[in-house]
């Protein structure tokens, strides 16, 4: 291999996407952090506005599909403002535990304040953690969820392996993430909405159109349903399946560790 080819290979190995931009892998974490520090305070309002409240149903679907039981240990990864954690906390009861983990301190602070204001304190812990290097022992959790977080992770394969490691045998991972709409017409309407309306909405409400432009771009760069399923299988997950929600705008992937 020539020196130039070697340099090119090294260069592509060290590069990743930040929306439509190609950047060095080492920079993605701080750029994504910048986006979420910026939107953290308006995150819930924007979620309701952008999805017309449907994100609540997507999250409910995830909870219902998780098979959570009293006494379970749950890791809500990239849990942000704690929507899933709030429900899990009630469902696992006093004998269970939920860990709300997020790499971003601003999101974690907003989530912690929100859950404490709701009186949810007894079985929730907060951990600032990178999904690629989870600071937990092997075989710790019955359920790991990552909702609208995986696409922001720099090395998704490494994150999936890390999640696999911390799951107990019989445990399951649920990935709720934007995906590829099933019908072309819906895809076009969704593209128009994402690139023309969403950034303006972000500019108007959160005073940050760029972050919402990144959101739209990062969704398009995220692996589609089948690719993500294969990635989960490659990481060791068994019986990986996915369920399209709202015509494939969002998909819930589920896989087991046996």
């Amino acid at each position: 291999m020539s020196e130039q080819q070697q340099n090119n290979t090294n260069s592509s190995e060290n590069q990743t996407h930040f929306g439509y931009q190609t950047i060095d892998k080492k920079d993605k974490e701080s750029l994504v952090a910048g986006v979420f520090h910026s939107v953290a305070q308006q995150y819930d309002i924007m979620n309701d506005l952008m999805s017309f409240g449907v994100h609540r149903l997507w999250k409910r679907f995830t909870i219902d599909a998780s098979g959570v039981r009293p006494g379970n240990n749950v890791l809500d990864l990239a849990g942000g403002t704690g929507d899933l954690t709030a429900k899990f906390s009630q469902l696992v009861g006093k004998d269970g535990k939920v860990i709300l983990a997020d790499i971003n301190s601003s999101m974690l602070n907003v989530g912690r304040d929100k859950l404490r204001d709701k009186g949810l304190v007894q079985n929730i812990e907060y951990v600032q953690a990178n999904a690629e290097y989870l600071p937990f022992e092997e075989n710790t959790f019955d359920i790991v969820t990552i909702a609208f977080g995986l696409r922001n992770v720099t090395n998704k394969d490494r994150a999936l392996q890390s999640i696999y490691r911390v799951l107990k045998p019989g445990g399951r991972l649920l990935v709720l993430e934007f995906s590829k709409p099933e019908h072309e017409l819906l895809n076009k309407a969704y593209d128009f909405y994402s690139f023309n309306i969403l950034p303006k909405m972000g500019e108007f409400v959160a005073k940050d159109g760029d972050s919402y432009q990144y959101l739209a771009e990062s969704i398009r760069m995220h692996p589609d349903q089948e690719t993500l399923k294969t990635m989960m299988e490659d990481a060791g997950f068994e019986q990986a399946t996915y369920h399209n929600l709202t015509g494939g705008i969002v998909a819930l992937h589920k896989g087991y560790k046996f």
Partner: protein
Amino acid sequence: MHPQLFCSVIEVIANKAIELSKSSANALAQLSEKSLILSLSELGFAIQLQVIDDKLLVTSPKSDTNEPPATADCIITTSLSTLHEIKSEHQLTELIKQDKLDIQGDIKVAQKLAALIENIDIDWPAELEKHIGDIATHKLITLAKNISHKAKFAKKQITSDASEYLVHEQKLVVAKHELSRLLLGINESEQQVSILEQRVLALTNKLESVSN
């Protein structure tokens, strides 16, 4: 996502109603940490009701074959039409015999939950006062009472008029046997006219032949 939408709406409405009903607190406390799974044949999915921290949680559990099925203190499989009958304990055996009802676990949980929902009593004027004030509430309640009174009167009037109209109409309406008798008479007349026509024609022909 229809089950999630359904559960979400039920959860919000039920918790708001329980919060506003002062008499519900004790009934809810008796159900603390209890859960019920309800499978109604009309819905096509199961609903799990759980009382946790003075809140009613409504979910739609979906178990894969890899996971143990959802558990609860009481699991009821029935139909919407049978649901209201399970309140009276003496009917339970009969419903189970008729395969209209399947119960696993403690039926008292279901009965307590049904009683909680039935006994929700909200003081609407007091709640309204908090939002729009005393005077506006009084006026609104008076207006609502007037409208209700007028609506009741109108309903009574319409019912009475309709009954009277129907009684009169009944007198005028042709009964089936009367109609068939009329049709029979028409047929007989038609036949007689036809016979007369033939006789007139025969007589005319006879007259013509005599004159020739």
